[in-house]
């Protein structure tokens, strides 16, 4: 997408995802917050990999690290990596039927949480395991919804041009 007009809606969806990430939830629901940013970036990396790729993921990751006070670079590295995997397989993923795509997203989200887990482990930060599994499960469940919404955004952008 070489024209600048198509970028704004994507940026808006990413900002919305960041806002959902920092929005407060009641304590019991906290570990089950889906990884909105990861889901959004997976979608855009799959559909428009030439514009939204590892560079975007890295910058967004740094923003999340600062907003949440995690180690600077932790989410950047993890997002960068999963977006790389997504871009690598984007042609394949586009033709997957929904169930298979959801299973792939599950695997990618697991990889994402594993990287976060690994970095926390190296840094000596102890975290309850549910904080890793919760987002993977809810993220997978929410994927079809996220995908439908973002497809709507994408169609509208392409039709308006």
């Amino acid at each position, binding site marked *: 997408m070489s024209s600048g007009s198509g970028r704004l809606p994507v940026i808006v969806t990413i900002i919305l995802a960041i806002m959902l990430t920092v929005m407060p939830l009641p304590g019991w629901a906290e570990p089950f917050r889906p990884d909105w940013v990861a889901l959004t970036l997976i979608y855009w990396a799959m559909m428009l990999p030439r514009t939204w790729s590892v560079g975007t993921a890295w910058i967004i990751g740094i923003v999340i690290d600062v907003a949440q006070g995690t180690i600077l670079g932790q989410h950047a590295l993890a997002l960068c990596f999963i977006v790389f995997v997504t871009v690598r397989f984007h042609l394949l993923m586009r*033709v997957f039927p929904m169930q298979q795509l959801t299973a792939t997203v599950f695997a990618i989200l697991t990889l994402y949480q594993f990287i976060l887990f690994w970095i926390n482990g190296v840094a000596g930060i102890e975290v309850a395991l549910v904080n890793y599994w919760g987002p993977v499960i809810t993220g997978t469940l929410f994927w079809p919804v996220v995908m439908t919404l973002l497809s709507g955004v994408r169609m509208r952008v392409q039709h308006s041009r």
Partner: protein
Amino acid sequence: MVASRADNSNPARIPALGVRLVALLILSIILMVLDHRQNHLDTVRKAIGAAVYPLQVIVDAPFRLWAWVQEGTTSRNELQLELGRLKAERLLTNARLQRMTALEAENARLRDLLDARTQVRDEARVAEIMAVDANPYRHSIVLDIGQGEGAYDGQAIVDAAGVIGQIIEAGVATSQAMLISDPSHSLPVEVNRSGLRTIANGTGDFGRLDLPFITNNADIRPGDLLVTSGLGGTFPAGYPVAIVETVVRIPQEPFADVTARPAALLDQVREVMLIWKEEQPGEQELPDE
């Protein structure tokens, strides 16, 4: 699935993707090492934090609006009820405050007798917790006061009932604070009744603190109030922290199993107080050896 024309025109691999990935991964790792091991990146963090601030304000806005609407639409009846309650509370507090003045004077006199420096009163200021979730791996909160208003790293935070936590990162307009219930938080406390000094560790549970270093024969029992001892230098002395809940003495173990319930409702407060310490309390004078 329809792919965009521009994107699909050439299904070949995205150029230099692997190179970019490797470069960014190395950059991340360098950042993490600098950040975690040496804390060199405070200024970078603050700069990006200032950029994120509008986002936090936007997320916080609906909650503020809701509180404002609620305030605006409470009925006259409810307001009167609340007014009555507040008046009664004020009376009670005032009565207690009178005794407090007398006690403070007495305390100063006794301290004079003991030749100890008088304790300077701490300065405090109310901060609001922004409706923004911080670190998902920690018990932490975001406050609407930053370095601009004089907040600093390590500053103590209390509410009306007791200690809440301390600031771990004072940003430009907001700051991040760690709660005392965070698993990596420890706090020097003493038992108000017996003066027994110990450490209270967070457990990751808002309603429980652990006291791991209490010997089996120590003078402590359920219901005892724990207050800050002021020994760590971060927290001023004398603020209530928690109430001892269970004491399990196991004969063959060196330490008893003691848990306490935080005095402050860590997961329910909206307004907290930041405390500026003016002087170290007199207890810190070491005896000559």
